[in-house]
């Protein structure tokens, strides 16, 4: 028999399992297998290999689900406890920014006045004003960073 026919049959045997074949290809393969013991053996080996793979038992560690459920519950509780704190932090940040914007002209004048009274160069009190504006964001960033660091440390310890 032509080698190309065997190659085609072997390809179709695999293709049928992996992505499926058309009806005409299935018919051709069935006809070929009726006449070709070599390809029939390949088909049988493939079927046997997949059947064995599907039926392969993997013993589960005892109590795996229970232990995991317990850990997940703990983590969920931790997350629930942290949520209000984080929400409060964001509310404070937003309020701080809103107040900052509303009071900016007054604070600018206050910095200007204080700068003149103390004889501080204009650039310095302007930088001071800029710093005052970034303070809420810096505090929020520091809190978030510290929290993330704490989380990482906790995870490392639990590992």
């Amino acid at each position, binding site marked *: 028999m032509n080698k190309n026919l065997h190659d085609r049959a072997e390809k179709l045997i*695999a*293709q049928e399992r992996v992505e499926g074949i058309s009806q005409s290809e299935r018919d051709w393969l069935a006809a070929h297998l009726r006449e070709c013991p070599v390809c029939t053996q390949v088909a049988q080996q493939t079927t046997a290999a997949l059947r064995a793979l599907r039926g*392969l038992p993997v013993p589960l560690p005892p109590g795996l689900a229970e232990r995991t*459920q317990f*850990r997940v519950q703990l983590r969920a509780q931790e*997350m629930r406890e942290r949520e209000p704190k984080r929400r409060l932090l964001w509310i404070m940040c937003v309020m701080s920014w809103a107040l900052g914007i509303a009071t900016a002209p007054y604070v600018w004048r206050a910095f200007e006045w204080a700068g003149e009274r103390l004889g501080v160069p204009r650039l310095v009190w302007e930088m001071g004003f800029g710093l005052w504006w970034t303070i809420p964001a810096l505090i929020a960033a520091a809190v978030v960073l510290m929290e993330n660091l704490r989380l990482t440390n906790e995870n490392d310890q639990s590992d």
Partner: protein
Amino acid sequence: MADDNKALAQGLKLRDSYLLDQLIEQYQYRLFRYLLYLTSSRERAEDFFQETWIRVLERGHQYDGKYKFEAWLFRIARNLVIDWQRQKKVQSLDALTDPEEGAPMEFAALNQASPLHLVLTAEEKTGVHASLDRIPTVYREVLVLRFQEDLGLEEIAGVLAAPLSTVKSRLYRGLEALRGAMQGGAA
């Protein structure tokens, strides 16, 4: 099915603890089996199993219900294993790429005696377990996802974050390797 997935997505978004308990029960066997074939270590598979569910809790809002839950679950598990590999720097970042593309192919640490060998009991070291042991992890993984987990080709591509053509190519090679390995084992 789509409605079930949407309901599941909604529950995960709300971090429904009852739902999570149910999911852990329901998918414990499949997830553990997948992780075992990926890591070749029962202890590591168990650690990753727990970490995967913690991630599901933390990132449940990212599951949109468009795809099967198990595909999303396996992807999380796989990413955890890859992250761990990166941290350990045991292997290159592309540990699960095709051997023909030149990258290392086993997930298990290089200094281990044999990948799946260590988790097998004496009786299991024959037959299909032993045959799987002889197959590169990249092929073993797709075989498990396709023929044990019954995932579709596109779903496997989603889990692997690889093109469909790569998935098909690995499946064909994997199938050939499995058949060859089983014949070798039987001989």
